[in-house]
């Protein structure tokens, strides 16, 4: 049977009743991978052998009555989260051959809950990009149109979920890297509140913005996965000492009277009219469910992309300084030590990573720091203030996730600025540290998925999930599958 098509909740229910085994589910997922992966290329590393061992272990646990939340569920993990004993490359030549001797906190939590790792998914190198075209290895294809990109940087995870190459996946989101590919692949993707989830073991791109989150086939699965990975971690000082509720608790509760803010700055010229229409229709749908749309303003939105590219690149320039070819990963030959360092970095990093390292090095430099880094921090505070103001009157904010549906491969690679604008609607959320979720809200005439984004208050993922589920339940966009 095609178990691979199912979500976490459906498989868990069947596993619990022992109608099926994790081995069967895992085998089904891997047979699916076998039939579609050469067209999609979601995975940098497939972990078939480990997966079957993990599945057997899960079956034993289930048999002995010790079923955990993710027992026997095949999950894919973005290849920038460290997995002990399993290569972790960040899709960079720089980390080719790097096998971490430690486990990230999120994957430790998945292990504790009995998950089955299907493999490590492709991304834009070091999570820098919006299409996976910056992967040091290959580009992942959009399952809805393999001539198009899946979005990025968590393009591998989103494509794997959309193509049923896993039951759910983890991504990471620095400026939209979960939500944008989720939208373009027609799946659910959430960036939780900054500090909700430990970043320990997530290879850093921009530490003050990076956050791990779920990419799933439906909203309930998102809540289930969020339950597993959330919580304060003594290994991450920036993880917040905030209580973790049961994120599934309010799923299915009605949303009558829920105030949904519609920011005018997010309906801009140059937006694909089909995307705008789908999102406007979603607002009407929400209204029909009893929610109240309210016009709000996020006046500093126009500065978000610039602010982001100053801060993210500044942090990245420092975070990526450690890759020098000495202790792990790629090393180039050099005529002396300095030459070895320089050659390793010149050959190990791709063009976009180098561009960002240079940009960030510049913005932190003496004489420029005040004009760029400090100024950007000040604007970041203003952007955060925009959300705080808006949330005085509304419960969630609704926007399109992306200005267009999936673009064609190569369409934006020549112009980095065009590529940066793919995240124009998602970046502010990272700057403000608030949670955001993208859910499917329609299709273009070319049968490409469209996503809508809901943005919530700090640590109020519950309301986001409640609102997202209410919409999902009343539509069937999420049930559509690409024809592969």
């Amino acid at each position: 049977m095609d178990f691979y098509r199912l979500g976490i909740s459906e498989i868990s229910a069947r596993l619990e009743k022992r109608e099926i085994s994790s081995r069967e589910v895992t085998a089904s997922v891997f047979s699916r991978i076998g039939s579609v992966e050469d067209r999609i290329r979601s995975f940098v590393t497939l972990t078939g052998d480990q997966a079957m061992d993990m599945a057997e272990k899960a079956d034993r646990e289930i048999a002995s009555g010790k079923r955990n939340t993710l027992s026997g569920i095949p999950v894919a993990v973005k290849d920038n989260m460290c997995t002990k004993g399993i290569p972790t490359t960040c899709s960079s030549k720089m980390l080719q051959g790097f096998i971490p001797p430690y486990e990230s906190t999120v994957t430790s939590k998945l292990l504790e809950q009995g998950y089955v790792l299907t493999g490590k998914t492709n991304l834009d190198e070091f999570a820098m990009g919006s299409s996976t075209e910056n992967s040091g290895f290959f580009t992942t294809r959009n399952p809805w149109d393999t001539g198009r990109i899946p979005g990025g940087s968590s393009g591998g995870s989103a494509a794997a979920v959309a193509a049923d190459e896993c039951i759910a996946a983890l991504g990471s989101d620095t400026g939209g890297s979960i939500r944008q590919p989720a939208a373009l692949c027609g799946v659910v993707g959430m960036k939780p509140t900054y500090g909700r989830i430990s970043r320990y073991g997530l290879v850093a791109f921009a530490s003050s913005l990076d956050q791990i989150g779920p990419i799933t086939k439906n909203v309930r699965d998102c809540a289930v996965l969020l339950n597993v990975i959330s919580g304060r971690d003594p290994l991450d000082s920036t993880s917040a000492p905030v209580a973790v509720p049961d994120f599934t608790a309010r799923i299915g509760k009605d949303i009558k009277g829920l105030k949904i803010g519609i920011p005018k700055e997010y309906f801009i010229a140059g937006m694909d009219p089909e995307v705008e229409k789908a999102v406007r229709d979603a607002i009407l749908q929400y209204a029909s469910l009893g929610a109240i749309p309210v016009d709000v303003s996020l006046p500093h939105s126009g500065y978000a992309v610039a602010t982001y590219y100053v801060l993210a690149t500044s942090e990245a320039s420092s975070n990526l300084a450690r890759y020098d070819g000495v202790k792990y990963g790629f090393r180039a030959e050099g005529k002396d030590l300095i030459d070895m360092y320089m050659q390793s970095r010149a050959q190990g990093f791709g063009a976009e990573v180098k561009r960002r390292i240079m940009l960030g090095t510049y913005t932190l430099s003496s004489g420029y720091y005040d004009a760029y880094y400090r100024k950007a921090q000040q604007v970041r505070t203003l952007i955060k203030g925009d959300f705080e103001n808006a949330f005085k009157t509304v419960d969630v904010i609704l926007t399109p996730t992306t200005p267009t549906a999936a673009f064609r491969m190569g369409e934006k690679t020549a112009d980095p600025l065009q590529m940066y604008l793919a995240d124009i609607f998602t970046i502010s959320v990272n700057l403000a540290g608030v949670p955001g979720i993208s859910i499917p809200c329609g299709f273009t005439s070319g049968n490409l998925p469209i996503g809508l984004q809901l943005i919530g208050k700090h640590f109020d993922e519950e309301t986001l999930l409640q609102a997202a589920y209410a919409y999902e339940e009343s539509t069937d966009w999420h049930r559509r599958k690409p024809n592969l």
Partner: protein
Amino acid sequence: MNWEPVIGLEVHAQMLTDTKIFCGCSTLFGSKPNTQTCQICIGMPGVLPVLNRKALEFAVRTGLATNCTIAKQSRFARKNYFYPDLPKGYQISQYEQPICEHGHLEIVVDGEVRRIGITRIHMEEDAGKNIHEGTGGFSYVDLNRTGVPLMEIVSEPDIRSPKEAAEYMRKLRSIVRYLGVCDGNLEQGSLRCDANVSVRPAGQKEFGTRAEVKNINSFRYVEKAIEYEIKRQIRVIEDGGRVVQETRLWDANKGITESMRSKEEAHDYRYFPDPDLVPIMVDQKQIEKIRAALPELPDAKRHRFVKAFGLPENDADMLTAERSTAEWFEAAVRAGAQAKAAANWIMGDLMKLLNEENRSIDDCFIKPLQLAGMLQLIDKGTISGKIAKSVFDEMYKTGRDADAIVREKGLVQISDTSEIEQVVDEIIARSPKEVERFRAGDEKLLGFFVGQAMKATKGKANPQMLNDLLKKKLS
């Protein structure tokens, strides 16, 4: 022209925490290279630092002891530079918001009290060590030290002479040792000193151009290196040149400082707040708790020693330089020793013996109670001060009590008048020439008679009684 030196010191103090500042690795000195490391201190991909609360407490303790204001909120920043012993490519330090600011401490130089301002104290992680010697032409990197917590204590440019600089260093060392936050060992590098030195015409307000002198790795070089640098700068100016802003290295073998890099070659460290570490919050309650647990500090102890024990300032200063010495002294006094006598023995014989062996007062055999016991024997006249010296040596070597040594070696002083009188009579009888000369006014000969008498009694004659008797009989 008269030149005035302006000196500021940047002192790095390795904190005596058991574990590193951002991970759980041991800080033990001298282990096999790269055995005290983990993925965090060697900066593997994806790892994160978590602040060791003990390091924070130590920094606050030091700040309070040097009259600093403790920041309610401070931050770590990244100092970005590239070096083989720095595995992350940046050092986690503090920059715009240090933990302590606006402190000072007092030093006494040539009888004058000088207040030296402390600009700031900040926490940071140490780097590793590159090893170039004895490695067959290769260079190796040892990361055991990477992540060991340091405090950087930055003084104001308030120091005006090499002597003051050395005194400031001694004072700082004394304080950190009192606090137990640093062992203060310059030779092993647990206390390191860089000096910012400039000169200006006496009376001028503006500072001259400064040079930073690094690599001052021993106490005696603090004074020497600064002295050299001052002379060098004066020479440069008087020869019509200009001092350039630069970093210079002290070469102890040559006794000179040499240019390492100029201002133009200076690193741009691209400091920015470390996003992996949240701001450090310290509330008043925590500060007061740490303040309440501070030990009595050298200055306070010195004042008390002068007041309570009637000691001269110099004695009090010497005795309080090290907490252990001061405590040893107080224990002896508590055991009944007269304060000034105890001070003399400690500063004299005991210090000399300890220095010869490079031994600390805490692990020497003789205990304060035993010194008190010996002093009582002197007071009672059981032994003379002179005999006491050899008794003390024996006590130092063996840790035995004074009275046991005195008894065993028969060192009890002869205080029997008739016994001494007999010896004196014998000497007078066999030295008629000397007696005659003495009586003719050659009073220096008294020493001859004393010497003869002491020789005859093996040094045990009560010196006072012997003197009195000799004078009486010879007059």
